[in-house]
C-alpha cells in the first residue's frame, strides 16, 4: 500500500475513534469501513488533495458532532430543570444573590483601587500621604529628574462661582475644580478631547486667565456646544477663556472628589482667592498636593528616600521643624493612581475585608449549589441506572449532569449580573452626605462582569463535577432492584453531601458574625449623642469673596451678619464658624502645631498637634454646649486693633476643649495660660466640653478654638464661613433667615442651607443604607443555610421512608420518628456551628486588630459575647426549624404504603 494511503488510513482511524461513544456505538463500524473502502479510491481519483480533503472532512465533522451532542444536552437539561421548577428557582436565586453580592464587593474594590479614567499608566503615579507642600518645595521636587519623570502641584476641591456667560450680571453656580500647575495634564498623561491643555510655555503669570473644563461640565452646563473652546466664563466674577475640554469621564486625579474645572496656578488672585498673598513663592505655605510620575525604572521606596532627603534639606534651609515617622522620614510616598486618596493600610484593610466577604459568600453559594446537586443526583439514581443499562456511557452522563449544573450557574451568573447592576446603581445613587463633591461608582465594570461570569461557570463545573461523578458511580443492578432506595449514608460516615452542609453552616456562621459586627459598629456610632442639642439649629454657608466682595467687604460683612440675623423673628442665637460638627460625613479638621510651657524639669516647650476651629462670638451658646470655665469670644475679640503676630499685638484669645487642655497642661487649670504657634501667641480664655466633630470620629481630638477675626479674612481671602442660628420651635427660622439675607445682600450666594437635624438624618440614612447591605448579606447567609439543612433532611426522609414505615408499624411514636430524623441534622448543625464559630472568632480578632486603622469609624468594638454567641445560636435555631418541617412530614408517612413500595 502506498505510504501516503497508509498514513491517511491511520489518521482516519484515529479520528474516527475520537467520535462520541454513542455515535461510535451506532455508526462507528460503518464509518471505519467506509473510510477503508473510500481511501484507496480517493487516492486513485484525486491523489493527495483528495486524501487531505477526506481527512479534513472527518476532522471538521468531529467537533460538530460533539457540539450537536452538547446542544442536545443543553436542551435536555433545560427540559429536566423545567420539570423541577422549585429546585431550579432555589439554585438560580441563591446563585444570583451570591454572585451579585460578589460582583458588588469586587466593584467596591474597583471604586477605591481602580485607575482614574483617562489617566495614562496610573501605576507610575505617586503622591505624599496627607502631606501638602509649598510651591517652592514642589519646584525642587520637580527638578529631581533622576527619580521624578514629571510632577504637578495642585489645589483640589476649590469652589468657584461660575457664570456660564461672560456678562457680569449672569447668575453664578457654585462648582468645584482644581488649581493646577502647568504640568498637571502632562504628568497625568491626559490628552484633551478638544482644544489644548496647559503648558509651562503658555501659562505664565500675567497672561489672560484660561480654564480647562471637564467633559461633564461641557455636556451639563454648555449643552455639548461644539464651539465651547474659546467661550468666556466668569469664575468668581473674573472672565476666563475656555482653552480645552477634558476627555470623557476624566474628573481629575482622585475622581472620588470630582473636578469640573481646571485653572492654572499662574492666574491672578482675583480669579482664585486661594492664590492671594503670592503662595507660589512662600516656602512656608504648605497648601499644595503634589503628584509625581516616577521616572522609568524607579520604584516607590527609592523615590520616597530621595524626596525625603530633598525635603529635609529644604527644611534646614527654611528653618522648618517637622515630625518624623517610625522610619525616620519626614514624608511618605504612596501610590496615587487610584480613584480615592487613601493610605496603603486603609486600602489593604478594605481590600482584605472585601476579599474575605467575597470568599465567604462564594463558598456559601458553592456549598449550597453542591449540596443541592448532590441531593438531586441521589434522587435520579434510578433514572441514571436505567440509562446506563441501555448503553449510555458514564462520561456522557457526567457531561450531561455537568451541563445541568453549568446551565444553572450560567443562569445564576446572568441573573447575578442583573442583580449586581441593580445593587450597584442603587448604592451609587445614594448621595454621600458631604459639603464637597464626593462620588463613588459601584457599577460593575466589564472586568468585574467577566470575572463574575467566569466564577459562576467555574462554580458550576467545579461544584457540579463531584456530585455528577458521585451520581454515576452507581451499581446498576442494585439500584434497579432496590428502586433507588440505596442504603442511607448517615452522619456516622462522612459523606460528600454532609461535608458540603457542614461547610455551608460554617461559612454562614462566619458571614453572619462578620456582618453583625459591621452593622453593630455602624449603628452604635450613628446613634451616639453628638453632645449638644441638635433641634432647631440652622446652618447657612456663605463665601462672599467668590461673589465679587473685596477682602475688606467680606470681613465687614461676616462680622456684621450675626447682628443682622439676630433681628430675624424666631432667631434666639447666632454665631459663625469655619466648620460645624456633624455638618458632613467627611468633615476634616485642620491641624496646627502649638507649644505650651512644659511642666517637665527642663521647662522646655513641647510641641503638640491640635485641631483648629475658628468661631465667632457666642458660638458655644448657640451650639448649646456650656463652658466649663472662662468665657466665650465677644465682638472685641473678632476685631483686634493689631494684626496677630506683630510685636505690639496682644495675645489672641483661645478656647480649649478638655482633651486639648489635658494634653497641653496636664491636670492644671488652663485659663490664663499661654500657647504659642510659631510667632503667634494665644491666651486661654475659656474651657469647653469635648464635642465629637463628626460621625466618623471615635475619640475627641484636642482642639483649640480661635476667633474668626477680620485679620483672618484679610490674610486668607479664601476663608468662607457657616452661620449657625438657633431658632425657636415651631417656626421656620431657616426660611426667614434666607429671606433676610436675600433682601439685605442680593449678590451674596448662600449654599448648604439646612438644619443640623436634616444633616444628621442624611448621615444616618447613608449609614443605615450601608448597614442594610450587610444585613442583606447576613439574611442571605441565614436563608441559604436553612435551605441547605432543610433539603438534606427532606432527602433523608425520602430515603428512609421504608425504614420509618417499619418503625411506625412496630409502634414508634411521632416524637420518636421526628427525633430520629432530626438527629442527623442536629449533628451537622453542631459541627458547622463549632467550625463557623472558631473561624468567626479568628476573623473577629483580626478585624479588631485592624480596626485601629478605622478607629475613628468604629469607636466601640462589638466585643460582646452576645454577638459571638448570638449569631450561631440564631442560625442554629433557624437551621433546626428547617430540619423540623420535613421531620414533621415524616410522621405523616402511612406505614402500609411505605412497606408496599418496592
Amino acid at each position: 500500500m502506498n505510504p501516503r494511503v497508509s498514513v491517511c488510513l491511520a489518521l482516519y482511524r484515529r479520528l474516527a475513534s475520537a467520535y462520541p461513544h454513542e455515535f461510535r456505538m451506532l455508526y462507528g463500524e460503518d464509518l471505519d469501513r467506509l473510510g477503508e473502502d473510500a481511501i484507496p479510491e480517493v487516492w486513485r481519483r484525486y491523489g493527495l488533495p483528495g486524501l487531505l480533503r477526506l481527512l479534513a472532512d472527518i476532522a471538521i465533522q468531529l467537533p460538530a458532532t460533539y457540539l450537536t451532542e452538547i446542544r442536545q444536552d443543553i436542551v435536555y437539561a433545560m427540559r429536566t430543570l423545567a420539570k423541577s421548577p422549585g429546585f431550579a428557582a432555589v439554585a438560580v436565586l441563591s446563585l444570583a444573590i451570591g454572585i451579585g453580592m460578589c460582583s458588588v464587593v469586587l466593584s467596591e474594590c474597583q471604586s477605591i483601587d481602580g485607575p482614574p479614567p483617562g489617566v495614562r499608566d496610573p501605576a507610575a503615579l505617586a503622591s505624599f500621604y496627607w502631606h501638602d507642600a509649598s510651591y517652592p518645595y514642589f519646584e525642587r521636587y520637580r527638578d529631581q529628574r533622576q527619580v521624578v519623570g514629571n510632577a504637578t502641584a495642585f489645589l483640589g476641591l476649590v469652589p468657584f462661582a461660575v457664570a456660564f456667560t461672560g456678562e457680569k450680571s449672569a447668575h453664578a453656580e457654585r462648582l468645584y475644580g482644581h488649581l493646577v500647575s502647568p504640568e498637571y495634564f502632562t504628568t497625568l498623561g491626559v490628552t484633551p478631547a478638544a482644544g489644548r491643555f496647559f503648558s509651562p510655555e503658555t501659562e505664565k503669570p500675567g497672561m489672560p486667565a484660561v480654564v480647562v473644563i471637564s467633559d461633564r461640565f461641557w455636556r451639563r452646563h454648555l449643552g455639548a456646544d461644539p464651539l465651547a473652546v474659546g467661550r468666556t466664563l466668569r469664575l468668581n466674577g473674573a472672565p476666563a477663556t475656555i482653552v480645552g475640554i477634558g476627555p470623557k469621564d476624566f474628573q481629575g486625579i482622585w475622581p472620588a472628589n470630582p473636578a469640573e474645572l481646571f485653572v492654572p496656578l499662574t492666574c491672578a488672585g482675583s480669579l482664585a482667592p486661594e492664590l492671594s498673598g503670592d503662595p507660589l513663592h512662600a516656602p512656608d505655605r504648605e497648601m499644595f498636593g503634589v503628584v509625581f510620575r516616577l521616572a522609568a525604572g524607579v520604584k516607590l521606596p527609592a523615590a520616597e528616600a530621595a524626596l525625603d532627603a530633598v525635603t529635609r534639606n529644604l527644611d534646614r534651609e527654611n528653618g522648618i521643624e517637622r515630625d518624623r515617622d517610625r522610619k525616620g522620614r519626614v514624608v511618605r510616598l504612596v501610590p496615587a493612581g487610584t480613584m480615592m486618596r487613601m493610605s496603603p493600610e486603609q486600602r489593604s484593610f478594605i481590600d482584605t475585608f472585601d476579599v474575605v466577604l467575597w470568599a465567604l459568600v462564594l463558598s456559601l453559594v458553592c456549598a449550597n449549589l453542591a449540596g443541592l446537586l448532590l441531593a438531586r443526583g441521589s434522587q435520579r439514581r434510578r433514572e441514571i441506572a436505567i440509562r446506563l443499562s441501555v448503553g449510555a456511557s458514564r462520561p456522557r452522563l457526567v457531561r450531561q449532569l455537568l451541563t445541568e449544573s453549568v446551565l444553572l450557574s450560567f443562569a445564576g451568573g446572568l441573573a447575578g449580573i442583573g442583580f449586581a447592576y441593580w445593587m450597584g446603581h442603587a448604592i451609587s445613587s445614594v448621595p454621600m452626605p458631604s459639603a464637597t463633591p464626593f462620588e463613588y461608582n459601584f457599577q460593575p465594570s466589564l472586568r468585574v462582569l467577566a470575572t463574575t461570569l467566569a466564577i459562576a461557570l467555574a462554580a458550576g463545573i467545579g461544584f457540579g463535577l463531584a456530585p455528577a461523578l458521585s451520581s454515576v458511580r452507581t451499581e446498576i443492578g442494585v439500584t434497579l432492584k432496590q428502586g433507588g432506595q440505596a442504603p442511607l449514608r448517615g452522619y456516622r460516615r462522612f459523606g460528600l453531601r454532609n461535608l458540603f452542609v457542614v461547610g455551608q453552616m460554617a461559612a454562614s456562621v462566619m458571614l453572619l458574625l462578620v456582618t453583625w459586627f459591621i452593622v453593630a459598629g455602624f449603628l452604635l456610632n450613628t446613634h451616639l449623642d453628638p453632645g449638644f442639642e441638635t433641634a432647631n439649629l440652622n446652618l447657612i454657608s456663605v463665601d462672599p469673596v467668590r461673589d465679587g466682595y473685596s477682602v475688606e467687604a467680606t470681613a465687614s460683612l461676616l462680622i456684621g451678619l450675626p447682628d443682622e440675623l439676630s433681628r430675624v423673628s424666631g432667631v434666639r442665637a447666632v454665631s459663625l464658624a469655619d466648620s460645624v460638627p456633624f455638618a458632613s460625613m467627611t468633615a476634616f479638621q485642620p491641624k496646627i502645631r502649638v507649644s505650651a510651657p512644659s511642666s517637665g524639669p527642663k521647662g522646655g516647650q513641647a510641641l503638640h498637634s491640635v485641631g483648629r476651629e475658628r468661631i465667632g462670638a457666642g458660638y458655644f451658646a448657640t451650639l448649646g454646649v456650656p463652658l466649663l470655665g472662662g468665657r466665650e469670644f465677644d465682638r472685641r475679640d473678632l476685631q483686634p486693633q493689631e494684626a496677630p503676630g506683630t510685636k505690639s499685638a496682644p495675645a489672641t484669645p483661645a478656647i480649649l476643649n478638655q482633651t486639648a487642655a489635658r494634653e497641653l497642661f496636664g491636670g492644671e487649670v488652663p485659663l490664663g495660660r499661654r500657647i504659642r504657634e510659631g510667632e503667634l501667641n494665644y491666651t486661654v480664655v475659656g474651657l469647653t466640653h469635648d464635642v465629637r466633630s463628626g460621625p466618623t470620629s471615635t475619640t475627641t481630638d484636642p482642639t483649640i478654638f480661635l476667633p474668626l477675626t477680620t485679620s483672618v479674612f484679610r490674610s486668607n481671602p479664601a476663608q468662607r464661613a457657616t452661620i449657625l442660628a438657633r431658632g425657636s420651635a415651631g417656626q421656620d427660622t431657616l426660611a426667614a433667615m434666607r429671606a433676610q439675607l436675600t433682601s439685605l445682600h442680593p449678590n451674596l450666594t448662600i449654599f448648604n442651607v439646612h438644619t443640623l437635624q436634616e444633616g444628621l438624618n442624611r448621615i444616618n440614612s447613608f449609614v443605615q443604607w450601608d448597614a442594610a447591605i450587610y444585613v442583606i448579606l447576613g439574611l442571605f447567609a441565614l436563608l441559604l443555610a436553612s435551605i441547605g439543612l432543610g433539603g438534606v433532611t427532606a432527602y433523608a426522609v425520602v430515603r428512609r421512608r421504608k425504614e420509618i414505615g417499619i418503625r411506625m408499624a412496630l409502634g414508634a411514636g411521632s416524637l420518636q420518628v421526628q427525633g430520629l430524623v432530626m438527629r442527623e441534622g442536629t449533628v451537622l448543625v453542631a459541627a458547622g456551628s463549632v467550625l463557623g464559630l472558631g473561624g468567626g472568632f479568628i476573623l473577629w480578632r483580626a478585624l479588631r486588630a485592624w480596626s485601629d486603622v478605622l478607629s475613628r469609624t468604629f469607636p466601640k468594638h462589638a466585643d460582646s459575647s452576645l454577638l459571638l454567641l448570638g449569631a450561631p445560636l440564631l442560625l442554629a435555631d433557624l437551621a433546626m426549624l428547617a430540619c423540623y418541617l420535613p421531620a414533621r412530614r415524616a410522621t405523616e408517612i402511612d406505614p402500609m404504603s411505605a412497606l408496599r413500595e418496592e
Partner: protein
Amino acid sequence: MSDIYISMSRDARDFLPLHANWFHILLSLVGADQHGYGIMQEVLERTNGSVRLWPATLYGSLKRLISDGLIEESDERPVAELDDARRRYYRLTRLGRTVLDLECARLQEMVRMMQRKRKQEAY
C-alpha cells in the same frame, strides 16, 4: 441514548429548503434501500463526480436524518450473494418521501420561474 432526542413529528414543510446533502441521500433511497457506501457511490455517479459525500459528512447526515425521522434503518436485506452482513441499510420513511416530493416540487417551480424569466429577457 440518541433515541431520546428523536424529534417530535414535524410538518414536512419545516424541512424546506432541504440541505443539498440531504436531498441527494433521500434521492438515493428512492425505490430501493441502500447502505452508506452505496449511497455515496450512487450520488457520485448521478452527479458525474461533482458531489462527493465524504464518510464523516455522510454518516453525520444519516444520523440527523434518522433523528428527524426522514429515514430509518431497514430490516430488509438483499439476496445473500449481494449482501454484506456488516452493512446497515436505510430506507425512506413516509415523512422522508413527502419531504423529498415537496423539495422536488420546489426545485421544479424554481426552474419554471427561471425559464419564464429567460423568455421575458429574450423578448
